[in-house]
């Protein structure tokens, strides 16, 4: 019996000619992701992580750190060069998700793994209504009763604090913060055990972002979902996560309890990052 909900081991993703040797000349020690010899970019290498039910793991780093690549590989939007990904809800964690074919991976996105994207238009169909976006997930999972679908959509939108009188409005008429809430509602529609959040509040006004973070924190507490929160913002990570890993030039430079990482960072890069954030 494993005690994690999602486990990633040895993830590597190279853009360009994917000779594994290119990893040997990239990373924090070399100060770059780019391999001159092989003309490739080692977006991430040797990345491991896991999250348990009810736990949120933070993945923090600046642009180019590789955190977005990690997120896209887990989500299935990007093919990795190497790696092993498991979900406890899929064959008890015995199956490497990366070895599944595309349609099996897509099926996971119905009710095993949900993603909230930084740009809501990536996770939503803007032309259809808020309720319709949720209905899309529910019908994909086999829901066929109109009232049940509507009730569940109402419940989710209520929980994510979307005004119910806008439930039937097309999402393109919503503000950014409201779109994120709809995206959250949709992600939770089929009660997935694992949720990935990619920069959930980037681009939102401060007050709007605070509200969305509060909401996410509340939802994580309630649902017992295992979450991976990718962000460059320490406030987000501090608010939402229990453990955190710092990425730099495609590698993990430090992993620890979030409060420990923020108050006693060990790695020089982590210290720099925390100092810059905390001022």
């Amino acid at each position: 019996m494993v005690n994690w909900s999602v486990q990633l081991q040895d993830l590597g993703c190279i853009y360009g000619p994917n000779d594994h040797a290119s990893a040997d000349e990239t990373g924090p020690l070399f100060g770059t992701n780019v391999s001159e010899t092989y003309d490739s970019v080692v977006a991430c290498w040797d990345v491991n992580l896991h999250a348990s039910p009810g736990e949120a793991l933070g993945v923090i780093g600046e642009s180019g750190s590789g955190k977005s690549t990690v997120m896209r590989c887990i989500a299935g939007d990007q093919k990795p060069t190497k790696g092993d990904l498991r979900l406890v809800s899929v064959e008890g964690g015995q199956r490497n998700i990366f070895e599944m074919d595309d349609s099996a991976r897509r099926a996971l996105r119905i009710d095993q793994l949900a993603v909230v994207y930084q740009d809501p238009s990536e996770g939503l169909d803007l032309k259809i209504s808020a309720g319709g976006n949720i209905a899309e997930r529910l019908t994909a999972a086999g829901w066929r009763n109109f009232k049940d679908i509507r009730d569940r959509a109402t419940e989710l939108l209520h929980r994510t604090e979307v005004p119910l009188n806008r439930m039937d409005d097309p999402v393109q008429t919503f503000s950014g913060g409201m779109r994120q809430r709809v995206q959250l509602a949709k992600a939770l529609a089929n009660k997935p055990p694992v949720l990935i959040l990619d920069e959930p509040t980037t681009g939102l006004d401060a007050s709007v972002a605070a509200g969305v973070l509060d909401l996410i924190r509340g939802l994580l507490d309630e649902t017992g979902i295992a979450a991976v929160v990718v962000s460059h913002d320490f406030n987000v990570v501090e608010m939402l996560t229990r453990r955190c890993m710092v990425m730099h030039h495609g590698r993990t430079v430090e992993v620890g309890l979030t409060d420990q990482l923020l108050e006693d960072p060990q790695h020089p890069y982590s210290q720099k990052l925390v100092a810059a954030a905390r001022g």
Partner: protein
Amino acid sequence: MKAMTIKDVISVQRNRNQIMDEHTKREIRRAVLTAVAVPGYQVPFGSREMPVSRGWGSGGLQITVAVVGKESVLKVYDQGEDGGVNAANLRRLIRNSEGVKTTTDARKADVIQTRHRVPEDELQENQILVLQVPVPEPLREVERDMNELRRMHAEADYAKIWVSLYEDIVHNGVVMKTTGYPCLIDGRYIIATTPIPRWDVPKLHQAPFLALYGAGREKRIYAVPPYTDVEPLTFDDVPFQVEEVNAVCRSCGCSGMKTDGGEAGYLVELPQQDGSSQWVCSDTDWCNRQLNTYLPEDQDFKAGELW
């Protein structure tokens, strides 16, 4: 029956009215067999140039020509009318090409080619219904990308069309589709039953006859074998409704409401000069028989010169 020789195939056609060579017929029959083997799956086929333009029933025509034999009895009708120009044209083309007998009585036909209607008569096991299809893709309104469409059918990922039904009900109270209502075939593929009215959709479910759908311009053939589930897409708690009109046919007097005890037929509206409406059965041959003023059973319809 003796096997075809090379000579038969390459010899000059003795019948200059033949609109399809034997090879093509075989190719189309193969496509039809594939379609029957995978109910609801749209089989691509090499759609030939036909003496009717694209959009005028060339798909249905190709299927009919491929499946009839010299002994077959054919009915061709359009929107319930056997006498319309297009139906007459197609019927003449096929008869001259294949030498089939023709009839207007759906009960007597082996093969019925139709546009827009399914016969009001209950068809039997030995009958084939060939439907003319303009747009075979049921998901066309919710997705344009061909690769994505293929994937959706392959993975039975029909969420998008369910969402469009949801949106329809939310915004309009009902599903708005009047013709070509999407149906789930054998629990697997969704097809466009285009372009028959909703009235006709229930006739397809577990029907004893074979239904073949041909789209010439789009180059697709699909089929619903006998005794196959045909379920119009709807939510469990939103019953599929057919068009009903609270009127009777001015010719035969049958009702436009299925719920009544007696015979009911799909009625079409005839606006009158004074602004009112009269209604008449769409299926003219069936209507004539309801009147019992039609020819007795043992007499055949006699074709006039231009028929």
